[in-house]
């Protein structure tokens, strides 16, 4: 499947923040969104998720115009892994993952056996089955992130939007999340994630998208990310080098300090 935005203008109350947005993502690929703080990534994600209607332009799924789909239908094609989780009550991991099924359950309904099976499957896929009865609020940041990804899986959408999935995680957990993202790609999901580290784009072998002063620049494969581009985005000097040791070959970023 293909998710596509054509000639999108995004922003609040007719006040455009991003203009001329043309992006396209296939299932089974990763799109990394790079950009400095306050460049408009949040606006971009909100529009992508349908929380913020496009000022103009259209959203297509394959060749179907989905711009005017209602909340529930839209959520069944694209799910969301937010950056912060605020739970005022203590739910178990299983209960949190089950919430992902709410797209498929009507207003006065509750989850059936089938929904539970799907949630269990999602937990197993994320390899967190063993913590299904633990309290979500007592988990570490990395574990919580895995649970939220499992919830997005239970939603059974073809595309997942992840807002800085590695933020405020320690180094090990960042790598674990990146690995999981690659696994999801292999299961032919389309992933759109923002990150503050261009290295993550190299690790995922992703497509890259630059959000830069009211513009979205689709630069295609991340091998097209150049030192001058990084300098322009982040305002500091960053060298890009080819790292190679036995089977591990990929580009790395080396900031010069």
């Amino acid at each position, binding site marked *: 499947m293909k998710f596509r935005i054509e000639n999108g203008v995004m922003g609040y109350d007719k006040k455009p923040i991003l203009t001329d947005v043309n992006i396209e993502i296939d299932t089974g690929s990763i799109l990394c969104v790079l950009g400095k703080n306050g460049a408009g990534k949040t606006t971009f994600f909100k529009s992508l998720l349908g929380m913020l209607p496009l000022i103009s332009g259209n959203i297509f799924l394959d060749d179907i115009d989905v711009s005017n789909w209602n909340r529930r239908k839209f959520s069944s094609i694209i799910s969301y892994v937010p950056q912060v989780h605020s739970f*005022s009550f203590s739910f178990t991991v299983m*209960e949190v993952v089950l*919430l992902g099924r709410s797209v498929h359950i009507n207003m006065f309904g509750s989850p059936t056996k089938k929904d539970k099976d799907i949630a269990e499957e999602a937990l197993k896929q994320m390899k967190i089955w063993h913590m299904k009865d633990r309290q979500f609020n007592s988990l570490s940041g990395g574990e919580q992130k895995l649970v939220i990804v499992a919830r997005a899986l239970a939603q059974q959408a073809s595309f997942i939007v992840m807002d800085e999935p590695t933020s405020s995680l320690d180094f090990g957990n960042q790598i674990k999340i990146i690995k999981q993202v690659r696994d999801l790609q292999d299961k032919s999901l389309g992933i759109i994630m923002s990150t503050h580290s261009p290295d993550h784009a190299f690790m995922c072998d992703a497509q890259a998208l630059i959000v830069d002063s009211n513009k979205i620049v689709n630069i295609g494969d991340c091998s097209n990310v150049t030192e001058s581009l990084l300098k322009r985005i982040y305002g500091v000097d960053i060298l890009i080098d080819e790292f190679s040791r036995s089977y591990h070959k990929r580009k790395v970023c080396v900031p010069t300090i």
Partner: protein
Amino acid sequence: MKVIDVIYKRKVLSQTFKSSYTVICYIGIISILVLSVIFSLCIGRYNVTPSEIMKEIFTTYESPFISTILFNIRMPRIIMALLAGGVLTISGCAYQAVFRNPMVSPDILGVSSGAACGAAIAILMSMSSFGIQIMSFVFGLVAVTATFLISRVLKRVNDQVLMLILAGIVISSLFGSVISLLKYVADPDSKLPAITFWMMGSFNGVTAQNIKGILPVVLTGTIPLVLISWKLNVLSLNEDEAFSLGIKPNTIRIITIFCSTLITASIVSLTGLIGWVGLIIPHFCRFLIGSDNRILMPFSFLTGSLFLLWIDNISRTASSLEIPIGIITAIIGSPLFLFFLSKRKRDF
């Protein structure tokens, strides 16, 4: 107070035996409730033995005296206590889910005092009991809406939870002063005592007729609440997350607030003000059974019923003079609440 420590350990246990633990909790509460109802039928100014009750219900033998005590006096009162306890608790749960905060309840949000004010006006104008219900519902709804709007407007100033509680205090005291004004102008021989006693809360004088009157209202409010309970879980997420899960949070909020206010007001219009129940019982139930509203709400209903049944038993048997319900719930509720507050864990 060791009890709570034991319960807290149970909570750890519950994570190991999740599904059967829930079933055990339900069986436990239902059995205690049934036994308590039988016991409550027996006690009172005139003691009846369980065997006499059995005889009364299951055989053709009838003692007019015992029959009157059981079916005309005690039974309506017990049913009312069960209904009021359950309703106040379940609406407490619902408000807590809607406002994403385990510290709110109908009294804190101003619903109770709004409803009380509406009822006081209705009493003053000598309206029928139906009129009292309508007035308390409308005023209750106005109060909770006002509280919510104020907290929304002030949201950016500070922490939202704090604003909600402060707004609730403001609205409560506003309606409180209107009530005082009404009392001041009320006829001191008839209307004033009626309003005053009503404010203290009581099940005294509840008839089968009254219960039949509010039962349809209570059912219309409670059934949607129970049905929507799973979706209420989604409300504890932030707005964007709820949206991305395909939910329109406001639709659920409006249905829930409407239903909760409806049932709270219908109870308040009949029994007067009964505080604390909607705050401490849901709190206690979360300790015991977790926060999944689908499991929590029916369980809270039963627990609230049990609680108020025993409060009423104390009220009518502790002394020769009946003690108003609202006074007992406050005396028992306030220290209990402080205790729960001190025990509140991060993950709770």
